[in-house]
């Protein structure tokens, strides 16, 4: 989508954004892949399930799609290396001696094209420009993304004023607590790196696992033909969420249906498994008993969100970052 179209969408949706403050153009810039080679050092703070963890990464990128990321351990040695030459992505976990070989992640999930997803983002979220700030010694323009329907800010982006690279991102939970902080501690542009930086050969003795291809996004009718179950889609999802697609998740000879909704920033998943399925809670975790549509259910709070499980003939699990009452309302809208 062009900047003009996105701008028009924002204006039509009544965004509290002045047409001349550059917020939309800046967001467009943040959504584009970087055009300049860079290398640097990143810190990634995640707050998962109340626990904060910080990882440090060395990153190197060369346009259009070559990258290398090394996650460092406490002693500063790379414990996880992710390398892509644009065709194959290798993930080498040095601790376990395992290498995963697969395709570089792409926009593989939805049936919507990138323009539609950006329009969805513009429909549901308002962007505004905050005062400039510096990150890693670089002048940055700062963007704030908040739901139009109200509620706390979901995202803040610090975008290099010259190169357009996002140098810092802060993401927030629906209750306003910070969930993710990705920040460049150091960045240098123009360093294209050696070709060898973006090539990978599994070391001798490593266990190489070929990743399964990404699941194909299907229409509901296609999914219905691929399984014995009758697909049952939630009739209600929170305002702003749009059904994107369904995919088949094969697991131990069975097929689980995975329905997906997005509001442009956040996502919601509903899994429908055969009636004989039982969901095993996470190691050391204990689900909380909940009532769903008058029947027994269980809620597990996980680092990446909540999982609400119940049975309605088939086994259902709803995963998302929504509040419990919204999750319950979605669950109770699944036809019985």
């Amino acid at each position, binding site marked *: 989508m062009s900047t003009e179209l996105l701008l028009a969408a924002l204006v039509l949706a009544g965004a509290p954004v002045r047409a001349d403050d550059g917020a939309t153009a800046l967001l467009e810039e943040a959504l584009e892949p970087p055009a300049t080679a860079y290398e640097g050092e990143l810190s990634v703070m995640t707050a998962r399930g109340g626990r904060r963890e910080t990882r440090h990464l060395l*990153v190197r990128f060369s346009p259009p799609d070559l990258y290398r990321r090394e996650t460092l351990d406490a*002693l500063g040695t790379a414990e996880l290396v992710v390398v892509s030459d644009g065709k194959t992505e290798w993930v080498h976990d040095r601790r376990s001696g395992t290498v995963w070989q697969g395709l570089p992640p792409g926009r593989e*999930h939805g049936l919507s094209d990138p323009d539609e997803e950006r329009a969805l983002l513009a429909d549901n979220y308002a962007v505004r420009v905050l005062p400039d700030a510096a990150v890693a010694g670089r002048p940055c323009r700062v963007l704030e993304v908040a739901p139009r329907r109200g509620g706390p800010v979901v995202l803040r982006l610090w975008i290099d004023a010259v190169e357009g690279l996002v140098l810092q991102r802060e993401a927030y939970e629906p209750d306003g607590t910070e969930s993710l902080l990705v920040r460049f501690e150091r960045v240098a542009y123009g360093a294209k790196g050696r070709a060898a930086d973006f090539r990978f050969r599994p070391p001798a003795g490593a266990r190489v*696992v070929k990743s399964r291809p990404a699941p194909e996004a299907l229409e509901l009718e296609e999914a219905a033909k691929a399984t014995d179950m009758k697909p049952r889609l939630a009739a209600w999802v929170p305002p702003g969420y749009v059904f994107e697609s369904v995919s088949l998740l094969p697991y131990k000879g069975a097929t689980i249906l995975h329905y997906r909704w997005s509001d442009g920033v*956040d996502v919601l998943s509903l899994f429908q498994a055969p009636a004989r399925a039982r969901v095993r809670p996470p190691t050391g975790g204990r689900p909380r008993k909940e009532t769903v549509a008058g029947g027994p259910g269980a809620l597990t709070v996980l680092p*990446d969100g909540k999982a609400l499980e119940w049975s309605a003939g088939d086994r259902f699990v709803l995963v998302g970052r929504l509040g419990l009452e919204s999750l319950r309302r979605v669950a109770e809208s699944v036809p019985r």
Partner: protein
Amino acid sequence: MSCPSFETLSAYADREASPAETALLAAHAPACPACSRMLALIAAERRSLSALPVPSMPPDLTASLLALTARRPWWETLLSELRAGFAQPTGAVAAAALAVVAVLVWGRREPPPAAVAELEVPVEVLMAAHRRYALSMPLTPPESAPPPAQLQVAGLAAERDVY
């Protein structure tokens, strides 16, 4: 902060220190030459140990263990009992009668109903599929993906192995 004990430093290097110790050491070690040197020594030792050759097992170990644990099939046991019984005629008659009764009883049994095996799905499998979808959102940074090791801890081969 005074320098921690060797045990604490070793636990820190192995990522087994408590969160409080980890936080203190992460702040202290980089600025302390003694602790930095000790951490470097621990790392060097760890590298040396991991470079040592893995001792190989005796080639006949598997066969020996299997022989030790091998169980005789029931029919082999029955035949040997019968053979032993023929040496003592009374025992042979009793054994034969038992075998006939067993066959008759076994033959009259109803076939067991076809059981529907329960399918146990770890919640992490579903979370991994959900996370992979979340990572495809335009504003989600790829660096936010958890390391595969976290999923190995959860008992899965890897997030990438799930799909």
